[in-house]
């Protein structure tokens, strides 16, 4: 096990242990007091966080330019296929009684709301980029929602909790606007859900990337048709056209590998009508073409225009119905990917195990993170 694999596993175990991936119900988490004043959460999906758990940004990363809180640019023309879900949940804790607290922002890109769907009249007013004293109404915490409003992000934006009476800054968050989108597609019969199934390797990596500050679409590969149409394509195009996203990372296991190809092919075919984007990272884990639920053909085609394609495969046997991926030209590890059965940790691999090796997690996460800015 490499250091990175060990770190990935430990991170996931820590998250599971902290109850952040499959933890207590929402109400119990809301009640937890933010130790330093401000707590931001990872991005929403639809009316909540599913298929991710509600995941807070660790205190140590709150000002980190990449690992810190990420936020989608909320474009004016967005289709928002899952409803308004681009605002970031912000928990403000009142560390002291009897002292007014205000929030100061670095600029007008950050807009605060008291409602997650921007109900008219629920915007928090700023005067000179500082709010009026926050109204806790006797509670110890206050939930607000942060929106990145505007066009292409010029850089990070900050939000600071201040006690004007003492001229003190109590806590600070540094938001990065997402310019990339990660798409993770599982194998046939794998549906993203909670609690996270440790045998769904694609989703284990996706959950890790989400916790590390990426915007991740974790989806059933059936949401990509053989010609690439479907809800995933719609969301990706919406992100490119309305949310300033210009970089894509797409990866999948088994039929999810085939769907990775199908999605990239469609994006490339209709590039002229979509806008400017680059597919910086793709990956197959034992990729199988996905022309149908019964397709067994190896996916041996490199996704069109992928700048870096990772490929892991094994050789099928009766135990896995002779299912396998195979060498893909110009993929990594060079020159055509890795037959995991040729290395000690993959001896005896089957189609149903390839996506679950820590070494495969490691290769995907490390190389994606090296190439795809958040």
């Amino acid at each position, binding site marked *: 096990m490499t250091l990175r694999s060990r770190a990935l596993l430990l991170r996931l175990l820590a998250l599971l242990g902290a109850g952040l991936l499959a933890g207590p119900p929402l109400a119990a988490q809301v009640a937890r007091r933010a130790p330093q004043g401000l707590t931001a959460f990872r991005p929403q999906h639809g009316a909540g966080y599913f298929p991710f758990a509600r995941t807070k940004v660790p205190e140590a990363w709150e000002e980190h330019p990449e690992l810190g809180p990420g936020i989608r640019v909320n474009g004016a023309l967005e289709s928002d296929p899952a409803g308004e879900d681009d605002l970031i949940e912000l928990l403000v804790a009142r560390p002291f009684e009897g002292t007014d607290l205000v929030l100061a922002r670095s600029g007008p890109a950050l807009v605060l709301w008291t409602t997650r769907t921007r109900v008219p009249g629920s915007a928090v007013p700023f005067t000179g980029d500082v709010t009026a004293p926050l109204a806790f109404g006797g509670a110890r915490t206050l939930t607000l929602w942060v929106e990145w409003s505007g066009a292409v992000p010029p850089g990070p934006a900050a939000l600071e909790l201040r006690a004007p009476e003492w001229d003190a800054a109590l806590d600070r968050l540094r938001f990065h606007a997402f310019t990339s989108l990660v798409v993770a597609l599982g194998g046939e*019969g794998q549906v993203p859900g909670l609690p996270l199934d440790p045998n769904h390797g694609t989703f284990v990596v996706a959950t890790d990337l989400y916790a590390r500050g990426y915007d991740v679409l974790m989806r059933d590969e059936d949401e990509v048709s053989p010609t690439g149409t479907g809800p995933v394509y719609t969301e990706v195009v919406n992100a490119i056209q309305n949310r300033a996203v210009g970089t894509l990372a797409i990866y999948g296991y088994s039929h999810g590998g085939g769907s990775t190809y199908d999605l990239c*092919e469609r994006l490339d075919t209709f590039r*002229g*009508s979509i806008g400017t984007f680059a597919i910086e990272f793709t990956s197959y884990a034992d990729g199988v073409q996905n022309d149908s*639920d*019964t397709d067994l053909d190896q996916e041996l085609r490199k996704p069109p225009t992928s700048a870096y394609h990772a490929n892991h495969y094994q050789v099928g046997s009766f135990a*896995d*119905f002779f*299912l396998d991926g195979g060498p893909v030209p110009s993929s990594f590890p060079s020159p055509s990917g890795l037959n995991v059965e040729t290395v000690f940790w993959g001896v005896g691999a089957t189609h149903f195990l390839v996506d679950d090796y820590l070494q495969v997690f490691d290769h995907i996460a490390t190389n994606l993170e090296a190439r795809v800015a958040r």
Partner: protein
Amino acid sequence: MGPTIPALLASLALLVPQDASPRPDPALQTGLRRVLDAASEAEQRAALDSLRANAGPAHARLVPQVFLFLEGSRDTREAMLAGFVLAELAVPPADAVAALVPLLESEDPVRRAGLARVLTEYEEPSLDRGSDFSLYRPYLEAEPAPGLVRHLYEADPDAALLALIRAQVQETAELRALLWAWHELADLRWKLLYGFVERGALPAAASAHAASLETLARHPRWWARCAAAQLAREEPALRTLVPLEALAEDVHPLVRALARAAAETGR
């Protein structure tokens, strides 16, 4: 030249009572699980041989059971068994289609979506060429079943209309009028796909296609009216060019359903 083998199979299938809700066959379901649980290749071969022996004429007994197994699968291994069995038993595409087409009449949208994800194997969908629905031709030459027509329009509306025109229409004037309408709709979809018509510019940008939409929407053949309703469903901005209110009260239930779905979309 006599009828083709697929045509004969389709005729046979049309004579058999249509069952959109097959029940699990315990013997075949057990047989499928034996393939799944085989401890050796020899055991797996034997389980496959047993399935082959009990597959029924033209695999008509086996194929729906394979689909039911896939539908109830709980993990990747179970889900991938369906393709393995169909491949190992060399089930011809025409057999698979003949067994699955009747199931498209199901009222259950989840089941229909599952069927669509299997049938694409035989439709060869392509970004450049569209789908190939030639395997369905025998089913479209008689009065086409609404479930099949719904499936075709959902899978590839341009290929669907063309397949129906070719299978159903021989009279020259009608054929030419429908082919022109098909061409106009396909052209509009192409322009939308490649960005030569912006969705924000609809419906003004599509006004040149209004006559063809009208032709289809008021055509005596119900499956032609479906084409107009389907386009309005895909592109809510075009609802003003399609007489949706009339189509929503159409005599044919599928036209009504598509028109009502179109009226709901984008509201």
